[in-house]
């Protein structure tokens, strides 16, 4: 059994209105040191395989096909176990 942590983030060149809103909230709470804030997605995926190489290849396809929209998002993942 392998566990993957998948992180999907909005590309730097693309505006993240959610992040801007949360940054604004932090500023209004007095956290002026927040220079920028971006919101992404975190997913935990459990795979019923022990083959790391195979798992990585499959995860890449999952990310490219569904988990991230590569027009506006980047992704990375970590395999554990």
């Amino acid at each position, binding site marked *: 059994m392998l566990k993957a942590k998948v992180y999907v983030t909005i590309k730097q060149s693309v505006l993240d209105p959610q992040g801007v809103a949360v940054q604004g909230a932090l500023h209004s709470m007095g956290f002026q040191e927040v220079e920028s804030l971006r919101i992404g997605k975190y997913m935990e995926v459990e795979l019923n395989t022990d083959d790391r190489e195979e798992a990585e290849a499959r995860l890449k396809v999952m990310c490219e096909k569904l988990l991230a929209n590569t*027009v506006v998002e980047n992704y990375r993942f970590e395999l554990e176990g």
Partner: protein
Amino acid sequence: MRFAVLVFPGSNCDIDCYKAVEQTVGEPVDYVWHTATDLSAYDAILVPGGFSYGDYLRCGAISRFAPVMSEVAKAAEQGKFILGICNGFQILTEAGLLPGALRRNESMKFRCHDSVLKVVNNETPFTRHYSEGQEIVIPIAHGEGNYYCDEETLQQLRDRNQIVFTYSDNPNGSVADIAGICNERGNVLGMMPHPERAVSSLLGSEDGKAMFTSIIQTWRDTHGAASVR
């Protein structure tokens, strides 16, 4: 000429689309469930607005893999007319039938009001009953209608006349004020505003009617007689 209105779990403009076809052109129209695997009976396919699959993950990301979508791709290839409205537009971009992606509105607000659109390209099967540069009033209702594509894609859209509608007063931050685009061939169109909600003066505008009459006119030109009410 037969119209299909696709229905995904979470579609909520399917009835509006159905009624718009019924009332503007009076041609046969069916609801087609997202599990359907045959669209061969239809000449035009409407992908309606709503929140398919709860918009989970991303708008349109999950619907794009519904069984009916491979049929939509086939139909697009055959040159049939595909119109994606709002969530339908998001689904068509996710499916790769149209370039780009829809992001959250720059204003961070869900925008729900009439919008003034400029008809940039009146040579598509969907817009021939408008004139070039005509301003029309079509309502919008979306939180994620901020059209994005990279510079290179934008240039291609311009060069190939694929920008069909632009906003007069950009409500969401879309690149180049884009409200609707078509594919290179012109038979697949996606737009955030809702023409199906602008087919009667009772609704505030009749400016959406011409999209439906344009489709039928184009079809008649290539298929000979079809009854138009």
